[in-house]
């Protein structure tokens, strides 16, 4: 793989709500096959950053590119590359798993045959195919999350964004989702940006971005961040970068 390929590029990104700065000069790049954890305490600017990458907010200062497509000028091409799992459940509770997934495939312009094939493939990978006709309301939190991950992958995106996807889940569900996403990054050559405040979700091979008060405080591999901060653990590194704030 060519090391110059960038799946997601954020350059000099700043954003304010009125006069209040939410992000200041944020810069980072994510390569395909790489799992990047965006770590930051509440109010660090993680959700604002996600809203800008998904074009829910307009980028005024700075530039965001997905697979080389500018999110502001080539919005549709850029969004076609993106799979998103939002922090809140975004499934329709009154529809079945299958109906929710078909709705997504229609929004991405997929034909019936291709859609059915992709839905089956992705649901089987997460052992959810047998539950495809159940209403989402009947599923537990962990299974709903699985369906959302399936949905985000149906159109074969190059970049997968996950905004604190394990919040509120029990430990086994959380661990299985963390492991599955790491596996996806490698097997599918997917660039993953995972916003989290849970340090135990970080794998040793991950890329790490620490965001605090809208600024990138550290950006590198886990080892690099530990070296820069001269810390023995990620927890210590995080505390020193955020001056003791809770993740």
């Amino acid at each position, binding site marked *: 793989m060519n090391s110059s390929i960038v799946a997601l590029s954020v350059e000099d990104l700043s954003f304010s*709500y009125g006069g209040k700065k939410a992000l200041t000069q944020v810069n980072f790049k994510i390569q395909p096959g790489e799992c990047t954890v965006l770590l930051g305490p509440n109010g660090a600017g993680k959700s604002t950053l996600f809203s800008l990458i998904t074009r*829910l907010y307009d980028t005024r200062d700075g530039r965001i590119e997905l*697979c080389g497509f500018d999110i502001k000028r080539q919005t*549709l091409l850029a969004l076609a*590359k993106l799979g998103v799992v939002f922090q809140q459940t975004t499934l*329709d509770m009154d*529809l079945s798993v299958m109906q929710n997934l078909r709705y*997504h495939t229609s929004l*991405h312009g997929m*034909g019936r045959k291709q859609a059915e094939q992709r839905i089956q493939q992705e649901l089987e990978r997460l052992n959810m195919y047998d539950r495809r006709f159940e209403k989402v309301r009947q599923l537990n939190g962990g299974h709903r999350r699985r369906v959302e991950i399936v949905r985000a992958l149906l159109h074969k995106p190059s970049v997968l964004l996950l905004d604190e996807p394990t919040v509120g889940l029990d430990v086994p569900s959380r661990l299985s989702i963390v492991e599955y996403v790491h596996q996806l990054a490698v097997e599918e050559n997917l660039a993953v940006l995972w916003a989290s405040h849970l340090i135990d979700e970080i794998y040793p091979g991950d890329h790490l971005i620490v965001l605090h008060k809208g600024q990138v405080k550290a950006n590198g591999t886990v080892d690099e961040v530990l070296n820069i901060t001269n810390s023995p653990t990620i927890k210590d590194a995080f505390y020193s970068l955020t001056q003791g704030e809770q993740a």
Partner: protein
Amino acid sequence: MTNRPGADLHLPEGRRAGQPCVTLLHYWRAMRGIIWRELWRFVTQRERFISALVRPLVWLFVFAAGFRAALGLAITPPYETYILYEVYITPGLIGMIQLFNGMQSSLSMVYDREMGSMRILMVCPLPRWFLLISKLLAGTGVSILQAYVFLAIAWFYDIQAPWQGYLWIMPALLLSGLMLGALGLLLSSFIKQLENFAGVMNFVIFPMFFMSTALYPLWKVKESSVLLYHLAQYNPFSQAVEMIRFALYGQFNSMAFIYTLVAFIVFMASAIIGYNPSKGMMMRKGGA
């Protein structure tokens, strides 16, 4: 490997790097998906279906029956003879169905936005204007379905129009549904939280309904207040009701048609601006 945008990363099947990712087929499939979802939700939510019908039926069976004796109506177009009050308010109640449906769609947009499912729609690779129009068409489809069920019940209550009227009313319902739905979309782009929706009921739906020709003809309004007469005359809801009224009797009211069409264009354009991340209210609200 090249440095062309997207060239080195896998693309959805059938697409090549640099080519527009949206085809006509994509638009069609997406619109079909959005409309199907809305209709399915409406049909499966039995309570919503019933409550949407109960409201105008109560007005027809109770309010109209009570006011029949109190209100005398002169012969006014499109009617060619004296009519019962129930007959007069039937087009107004169809307008009411569409007005409430438009606001209901608006409410569901605010709800979807708060609950997050709106985000899934907004991050799909289609222009926002198209997504909003698809949503609007879906909501209008639901309101037309409701209006025909109401007309069927009214038919058994001896409120019967010429059979051609039931065909002519279809395009009228489409335009009025689009106009009222677009108004709902516009309002939803301004409303930040679900709780604020009560304000819409008080400041938009009720004034719009009561200051219109839905319940009483314009000349009757003029007798009591000239100001109210002008407000009712220029109320887009009045024009939509008149368009429906004339269509139900096989006639075309050009003034009402043009007025409703212009109102639709204005509301829709404003809603599209409202939902545009770089221009609209979404920026100020800090949420999509």
